[in-house]
């Protein structure tokens, strides 16, 4: 990297080549069409081209690349989940994350910080011990720690949280990390583009064409605002727009859409190294490389297909932040935004095959999708290439609800929704 940087500095050819090739026309057909140019869709395209040799792929994005939930999350990466399915899956994701900057030759600012999930009640502490044991069983570094350990690691925090929610302990997860989210989309996009994948921005899908020759519906094409594409395989990776896509192919799902808001403070001197989460106070916070405090809270309480922000949210999150860190009372909020979270009843994703042949789902990513970006790309590319679900995602299939076999992950959600 330093050699490359030096070359770049001494080069007369500024700036560098663009990250992606701009394609004026859609081809009449592709082997695979990926709907959604966020981290998940681009990662799937990248691994399809790199690992499965499928390069005749189009990624269709309604807006601009990585402008959806990839750009709207709070960039936390962790694998301290509750179910064996979840722990195995996210652990693989963390492993992929750690090599990703080298893989892309692009600095993702991947920063391992350690992750505290605070417990304010004995009941919460019991869940922390449960998660720690499940994690350790699968080789993930998590441990339940007491209030003294929290006090030592976070000396700047009011351990009583304003006197009304004293910390009794925490789940400490050493591999917890943050990364620069835009760069993840760009890295996967550039890698896919270099391997022949076409990325089409400002391309909206209006309909998905199906045919039924007696053995059930199968995908044959996609209608977009720029014309029709023939394809036998469509991967749907559109987060908050998933119900609209499912409606096009006549599928029902338990997904419901609530906005999830977040905000950042003005940049301040580095003082917060670990990532801190409190489910009871509905706060998760980390300090970015720029010095901004990146803060999130729970979902908005009712269905809405919009990315509007509310003052209610900023007020309640700020109040809870001040319970934990009273010295921040003079710090200003810089920006506030929202994303549309595709929630599921069991807080686990919905991935894999569907009753429509050639229609693959990577959805139900609710409030936990960013950290799963690499492993979703890996497992979904495998699933699409082989037309069978990757072993790591078998617990996340759409038909689990019909079988009443849910994958209960709510206990590992960062805040009580």
């Amino acid at each position, binding site marked *: 990297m330093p050699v490359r940087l030096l070359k770049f500095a001494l080069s007369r050819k500024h700036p560098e080549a663009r990250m992606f090739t701009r394609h004026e026309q859609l081809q009449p057909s592709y082997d695979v069409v990926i709907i959604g140019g966020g981290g998940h869709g681009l990662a799937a395209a990248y691994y399809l081209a790199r690992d499965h040799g499928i390069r005749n792929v189009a990624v269709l994005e309604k807006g601009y690349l990585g402008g959806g939930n990839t750009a709207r999350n709070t960039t936390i990466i962790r694998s301290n989940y509750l179910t064996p399915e979840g722990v195995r899956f996210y652990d693989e994701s963390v492993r992929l994350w750690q090599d990703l900057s080298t893989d892309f030759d692009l600095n993702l600012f991947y920063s391992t910080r350690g992750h505290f999930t605070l417990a304010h009640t004995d009941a919460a502490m019991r869940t922390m011990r449960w998660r720690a044991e499940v994690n350790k069983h699968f080789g993930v570094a998590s441990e339940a720690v007491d209030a003294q350990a929290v006090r030592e690691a976070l000396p700047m925090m009011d351990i009583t949280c304003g006197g009304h929610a004293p910390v009794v302990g925490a789940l400490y997860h050493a591999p917890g990390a943050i990364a620069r989210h835009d760069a993840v989309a760009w890295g996967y996009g550039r890698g896919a583009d270099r391997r022949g994948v076409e990325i089409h921005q400002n391309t909206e899908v209006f309909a998905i064409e199906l045919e039924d020759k007696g053995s059930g519906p199968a995908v044959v094409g996609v209608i977009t605002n720029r014309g029709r594409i023939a394809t036998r395989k469509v991967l749907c990776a559109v987060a908050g727009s998933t*119900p609209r896509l499912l409606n096009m192919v006549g599928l029902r*799902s338990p997904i419901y*859409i609530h906005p999830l808001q977040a905000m950042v403070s003005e940049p301040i001197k580095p003082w917060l190294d670990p990532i801190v989460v409190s489910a009871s106070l509905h706060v998760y916070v980390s300090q970015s490389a720029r010095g901004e405090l990146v803060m999130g809270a729970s979902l908005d309480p*009712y269905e809405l297909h919009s990315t509007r922000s509310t003052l209610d949210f900023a007020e309640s999150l700020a109040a809870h932040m001040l319970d934990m860190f009273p010295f921040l009372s003079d710090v200003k909020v810089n920006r506030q935004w929202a994303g549309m979270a595709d929630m599921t009843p069991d807080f686990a994703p919905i991935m894999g095959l569907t009753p429509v042949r050639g229609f693959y789902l990577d959805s139900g990513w609710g409030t936990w999708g960013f950290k799963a970006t690499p492993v979703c790309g890996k497992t979904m590319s495998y699933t699409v290439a082989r037309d069978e679900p990757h072993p790591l995602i078998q617990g996340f299939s759409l038909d689990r609800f*019909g079988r009443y076999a849910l994958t209960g992950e709510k206990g590992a959600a960062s805040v009580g929704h």
Partner: protein
Amino acid sequence: MTCPVNGARAISEFVCGGELRAMPDPDTASDATWSDYVFNRNSVPAVKREWWCHTPSGVWFIAERDTATDAIQRTYLYEAGLTT
């Protein structure tokens, strides 16, 4: 939000109880019909009939709300026979 009993009140006084849906008869419904009722939702943005509650007074009522724009079009008390 306008409560049919208490009039216009701040939105923070209300809780959404989800879309108005018809429950299949649990004694006769198949497992598939029942799981469809329990889990599946119609999450395509549209004007929907929803249950809402004015929490200080405990009044449950129906609101017709556009889930794309958050515009509340009408609120009224539930009457038997009302469907989605």
